[in-house]
C-alpha cells in the first residue's frame, strides 16, 4: 500500500513539473482564472441596459412625450425614428424594440376609445426580448395610468405585490457571471489537462517506458488525477477569493471550503473523463475534436448559461448523468444561497456517485488500452 502511495506521489510530482516547464500553459491557466473570470463577471450588465429602442411618435402629444421621456438610459437607449426607418433598423438588428405610438393617441384615450400602442420586438434576441418587453409595457402603462389619474378617480384595489429578491437582492449580474465562469473553467481545465497529459505521454513514447517499470496503470492514472485536480482546485479557489470576492466584490453567502469540497468531487469525475477521452482518441487532433464535442454540451446544458427547468425533458434527464449539472446546482446552492451540507447533500452525493462511476469506468478502460498505447 505504502509503495502504491509513494509511486502515485512521485508520478504526480512529475506531472506538475510538466506544467511548470510549459510557461505558455501556466499563463493560460492564470489568464483563465483571472482575466477571463473578471471579464465574464463584468460583461453582462445588471438587468437590462442599453437596450436599443426605436420610438415612432405619430401623436406628438403631451402623453406620448411623457411615455417617451419615461424610457431613458441606462436601461434603454432611445432613438426617435420615422415610420420608414423602423423595418430597416430592426432588420439590421439596430433596434431590439420599436415602439409605435399611433396618431391622436391622447385624444382617443381621453375619449375612452382604448387606443393601442404597438411594440415590435426582435424575438431572435430572446434574452432581451422578454424582459425588455415587460419593462416597456410596465413603464408605458404606468405613465398612462398616472396621466389618467388626473382625470379620473382611482378605482384600483389596494393590494400590492411586494417582491423580494433573495440571495442576490439587486440581481447583480457579476455575481452570476463570474461564478459561473469559474465553474465552467474548472470543468474545461480538468478535462484538458489530464486528457492532453496522457496523449502527450502516448505520442512521446513515455507510456511504454512507464509500463516497463514497477508501477501499475492504476497508479499512473491516479497520479494524473490528483496532480491536475490539485492545480485546478488551488487556482479556482484562489480565483474565487481574490478575483470574485476581492476584485468584483461579490458577496459569497455560503462556505468556500464546502464549495471546494464540491470542486474536489467534481474534479474526480471530470479528470476521469479526461483520461477516458484520451484512451478513446488516438492522437492529439482527435482528442481536440472530442473535447469540443463533449465540453460544449456539458457546459451549455448544465444550467450555467440558461435555466435548466426550461430545457426539454429529455435533455434534462440525460444531463442528470453529467457531473456539471450537479456541480452547477451545488455551486449555486452553496455559493449564492448559503446552503450547507444539510441542504446540498443530494448534489454532493450525486457528484460523488457520478465521480466514482466515471473513475471506475475510466480505470477499467485505461488498464485495457494502455498496453496498446505503448
Amino acid at each position: 500500500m505504502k509503495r502504491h502511495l509513494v509511486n502515485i506521489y512521485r508520478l504526480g510530482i512529475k506531472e506538475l513539473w510538466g506544467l511548470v516547464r510549459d510557461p505558455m500553459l501556466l499563463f493560460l491557466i492564470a489568464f483563465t482564472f483571472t482575466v477571463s473570470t473578471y471579464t465574464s463577471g463584468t460583461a453582462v450588465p445588471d438587468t437590462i441596459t442599453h437596450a436599443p429602442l426605436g420610438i415612432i411618435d405619430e401623436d406628438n402629444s403631451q402623453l406620448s412625450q411623457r411615455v417617451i421621456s419615461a424610457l431613458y438610459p441606462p436601461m434603454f437607449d432611445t432613438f426617435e425614428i420615422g415610420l420608414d426607418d423602423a423595418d430597416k433598423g430592426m432588420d439590421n438588428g439596430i433596434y431590439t424594440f420599436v415602439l409605435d405610438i399611433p396618431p391622436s393617441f391622447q385624444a382617443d384615450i381621453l375619449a375612452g376609445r382604448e387606443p393601442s400602442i404597438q411594440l415590435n420586438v426582435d424575438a431572435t434576441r430572446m434574452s432581451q426580448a422578454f424582459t425588455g418587453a415587460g419593462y416597456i409595457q410596465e413603464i408605458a402603462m404606468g405613465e398612462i395610468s398616472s396621466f389618467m389619474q388626473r382625470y379620473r378617480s382611482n378605482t384600483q384595489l389596494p393590494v400590492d405585490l411586494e417582491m423580494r429578491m433573495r440571495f442576490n437582492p439587486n440581481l447583480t449580474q457579476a455575481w452570476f457571471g463570474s461564478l459561473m465562469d469559474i465553474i465552467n473553467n474548472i470543468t474545461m481545465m480538468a478535462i484538458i489537462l489530464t486528457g492532453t497529459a496522457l496523449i502527450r505521454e502516448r505520442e512521446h513514447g513515455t507510456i511504454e517506458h512507464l509500463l516497463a517499470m514497477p508501477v501499475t496503470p492504476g497508479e499512473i492514472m491516479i497520479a494524473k488525477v490528483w496532480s491536475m485536480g490539485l492545480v485546478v482546485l488551488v487556482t479556482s479557489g484562489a480565483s474565487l477569493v481574490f478575483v470574485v470576492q476581492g476584485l468584483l466584490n461579490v458577496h459569497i453567502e455560503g462556505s468556500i471550503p464546502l464549495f471546494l469540497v464540491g470542486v474536489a468531487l467534481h474534479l474526480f469525475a471530470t479528470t476521469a473523463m479526461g483520461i477516458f477521452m484520451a484512451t478513446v482518441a488516438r492522437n492529439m487532433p482527435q482528442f481536440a475534436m472530442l473535447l469540443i464535442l463533449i465540453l460544449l454540451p456539458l457546459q451549455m446544458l448544465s444550467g450555467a448559461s440558461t435555466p435548466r427547468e426550461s430545457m426539454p425533458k429529455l435533455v434534462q434527464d440525460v444531463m442528470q448523468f453529467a457531473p456539471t449539472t450537479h456541480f452547477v446546482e451545488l455551486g449555486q446552492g452553496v455559493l449564492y444561497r448559503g446552503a450547507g451540507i444539510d441542504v446540498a447533500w443530494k448534489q454532493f452525493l450525486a457528484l460523488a456517485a457520478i465521480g466514482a462511476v466515471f473513475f471506475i469506468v475510466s480505470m477499467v478502460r485505461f488498464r485495457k488500452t494502455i498496453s496498446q498505447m505503448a
Partner: protein
Amino acid sequence: MPDSFVQRPPVAHIAGVTLHYGKTLAIDDLSLDIPSDCMVGFIGPDGVGKSSLLSLISGAHAIQEGTVEVLGGDMREKRHRDNVCPLIAYMPQGLGKNLYPTLSVEENLQFFARLFGHGAAERRRRIDDLTRSTGLYPFLGRPAGKLSGGMKQKLGLCCSLIHDPKLLILDEPTTGVDPLARAQFWNLINRIRGQQPGMSVVVATAYMDEAQKFDWLVVMDAGKILATGTPKEILARTNTDSLEAAFIALLPEEKRQGHKEIVIPPLDSNGEEDVAIEAKGLTMRFGDFTAVDHVNFTIRRGEIFGFLGSNGCGKSTTMKMLTGLLEPSEGEAWMFGKKIEPSNIDTRKRIGYMSQAFSLYSELTVLQNLVLHARLFHVPPEQVDERVNEMLERFGLTKVQNILPDNLPLGVRQRLSLAVAMVHHPDILILDEPTSGVDPVARDGFWEYLIALSRNDKVTIFITTHFMNEAERCDRISLMHSGKVLASEAPATLVEERNAPSLEDAFIQYLIDAGADAEDGGEGLAPAAAVSQEEHAERAKASRFFSMQRLISYMWREALELKRDPIRGTLVLFGSLILLIIMGYGISLDVENLRYAILDRDQTMLSNNYALNIKGSRYFIEHPPVENYQELDKRMKSGELSVVLEIPPGFARDVERGDPAQVGAWIDGAMPQRAETIKGYLQMLHTGWLQDRLTEAGIEAPSMANIEVRYRYNPDVLSLPAMVPAVIPILLLMIPAMLTALSVVREKEMGSIINLYVTSVTRTEFLLGKQVPYVLMAMVNFFLMTAMAVFLFDVHVKGSFLALTLAAFIYCIFTTGFGLLASTFTKSQIAAIFCTMVATMIPAVQFSGLINPTSSLTGGGRFIGEIYPATYMLTISRGIFSKALGFTDLYSSYIPMMIAVPVIMCTAIALLKKQEV
C-alpha cells in the same frame, strides 16, 4: 603536406561563429572553410556542436554571431537564403525526422518534389529513379511511419536528393541503421556523386569506419576544431593506424577519461548453469504480420547476449515481450525460473530497460529524470543521492544535470536513457540499441561499465547493436532476420563457420542466405539531365516571393493527412451535426416550468383564489405548500423553489375592508435573468387577478390604452428558430479553429517543421497551404448544418442563401486562420488546444450575442464582442435565416469580418518563424 582539398573554392566559409542555447555554449568562435565537390565528414564526441554547425550551414538555425557564407553568399541575408535554399538539402538527425509518418513513401516524395517545383512528368521520373536505385520502389505505397529505420533514412535521402542539390548535408544519417542498410546507403551516395560530380556532401557521423572513406575530415571538440585534413593526414599526424585511435589521440587528456583498450575477462561458468532468461517458441503476431516467429534462447546469468539483425526484424518486439510490455501471441519466457507476465510488478523491478526511441520526460531535467526513476524503482531513500551521483559521473552527465533533455544532443540523451535504466541496479539489463549515436570514447566507457557489471556483479545483459565491434564483445550473439533467429553462437564461432574476414561480412552473408536483398536492386540512376547552375538560379528567382505550386504541395499534404485520419474527419462532420441538435433543442431561453410554492398564512377563500391564479399559469409548476419560514429558507436554499408567494394573515379581511394588503413574493436571485423574468410574470398575473376581482365586484375597469406586443421574426417566440441560426456560427468557429490549431504546433512537436526552415517555401505559402483543406472542410460542415437546419429543424433560410454562403466562407477563413495563429505562437499541442478553447468558447458563448446582445454588454466583454467576427456572423446568420435579408441589407456586418481575415493571417505569418532561433 599540401592539402589539395583546401585549394578548392570553399562551398561554405565560416568565420568567428559562436552559438549559444540559453546559457550553454554550443559553438565557440569557430572558423572553417569547407572544400567543395567532395565528401566532408565531421567527427567528434557527442554534444560538441556538430549538429549545431550543420544546422547553421543549412540555414535551419538563425546565426547569432559570426559569418556563415554558403554557396557564395551570406546566410544571414534572407535574400541569399531564399536563393540558395533550393540548392541545399538537409537531412536532420533522428530517424525519419523530416518525414510525414502517415503519408506513404510515394506521397512523401511527391510532396518534396512539388515543393521544389518539378512538373508531374519530371516528378514521376525522379521518384521512380530514386526509389529504384534505393530499393524503395516496391514500398511506394507503404506509410513512412511503418518503414524500418534503414528504409526511413533512405527515404529521407531520396527526399533530399529530389531537387538535385549542390550541397547535401547529412546529420548522422546512418545512426540506428543496420550494417546492410548502411552499406547500401553509402553505395547510393557514391553512385549519386559519380553522376553529379558537382555536388558537395557534408556529413556528421559517429561511425569511424564511415569517416575513413570520406575525402576530408573535421575533428571537433567543445565547439572548436581540433584538426582537419584527409583521413590519411589525420592518421599520419597522430601516428595511429585506425581513425578510432586517431580520434581518441586527438582528444584532450581529460576527455579521454582514462580511455583504454577494452579487455573482456571470460565468463566463468562454474559448472552450474544458472539461467537468467529463457524463451521457448516466443511468437508475436500483429494481425497477419508475424513480427517474431518461434524464437528460442537461453541466457545464462552474467552473460552478455547480443541481438543482431536488420531494422524491423523483430529484435525490439522480442525485447518488449521479455519486459512484459507485450504479451506473446504464443510461447513462453521465464526470468530466473519465473514466468514473465505483464502483470507481475516484481519481475519488472529486476529489469532495467532502455527502449530504442528516446522515451524520457522532456519536461524533467537530467537530474530529475534520474531521481524520479530511482524513486519509482524504490531505491532506498538514503541511497538515492548516492546512486544518482554515481550515474551522473559514470555517464558524464554531471555538467548537464540541470538541463532539459530536449536541449541535449542525441548522444548525451542516449547516455541519460542508459543511466536511467541502470539507476536501480537491476539483475537484468535489456538494452535496445543503447549506443546508437554515441561517440566512440563514450561507447567504450559504457562497455567497460557493462563488462564490469556482467563479470563482477553477475548482471545479465541482453543488448541489441549495429556496431560490429560491440557485437564482438558479446559472449554470444543471435542473428535475427524477419522474425526468425538464423544463428546463435559466440561471435568468433560465427566468423569461423562462415569463413568470413570479419563479423560484419559473416553477418551480411547470413542475411543474404536468408533472402535479404544485398545489392538493394540498385539499378543506378538514369543519367538525370543535370540541372545547371543557371537553371537553379532561374527557378529560385521566379518563385522567390510566392509560388502557387509550393502552396499546393503543402495543401495537398495537409489534405492527405486529414484523409489518413478518417476518425478525425468523422468527428468533425458528425460531431457538428450532433452538437447542432443538442444545442438547438437544448438551449432554451424561454423561462418556463418555474417551481413555486405558497406560504398561505391566511387560509381563506380569497387567499386560495390568489394561489389558484398562479397555478393556472403555464409558466409555473406548483410544489407542495411551505409551512413556515424555516422550511421556506431550506427549500429555497436547495434550489428546489424559485419563487415562494407569501399571503399574510388577515389578507382576506384587509381586502374586504379596503385596507391596504400585501402579497409577498420571495424570488431566487441566483440567476439574475431568470429572476427578472419571474418578476415580470408575477406582476402580470397579479394585475390580471386584480382586474378579475374588480370585474367580479361589478366595478367597471377603467378604460385605458392597450399595448400590443408583436414578436417579429420568430412570432411564437420559440427557442429553436432563434437558437439554430446562432449555434451554426459558434460551431463554425470552434471546430475549424480547433482543427487548424494543431496543424503547425504538431509539426513543431514532431520535428517536421524543419522542412519549413530549410526549403524555399515561404511562411505565407506554408500557412495558406495548410489552411485551404480546412476551409473546404469547414464549408462542407456549413452546408451540412444548414441542410440539417432546413430539413430537420424546419428552420428555413428566408433570405439570400448565396449571401449566407459568402459570409460563411469569409468567416471560415477567419476561424481557420485563428487556429493557425494559436498554433504559431504556442510550443506544445496542449497549450495550443487550451489557447484555442479559451479564445473561442468564452467570447463566442458569452460576448458575441448568442444569449445577450453585444450592444448591451459592458466593459471588456463588450469590446471583445465588438471586434470579434463571430458577433457579425451571428447577425448575418440570424438576419438571413430569420429576417429574410440579403447582402445589401447586411453588408455592414461583412466589413468587420473582411478586415479580420487579413489581420489574423498577417499576425499568424508574422509570428511564424522561418528559422530556428
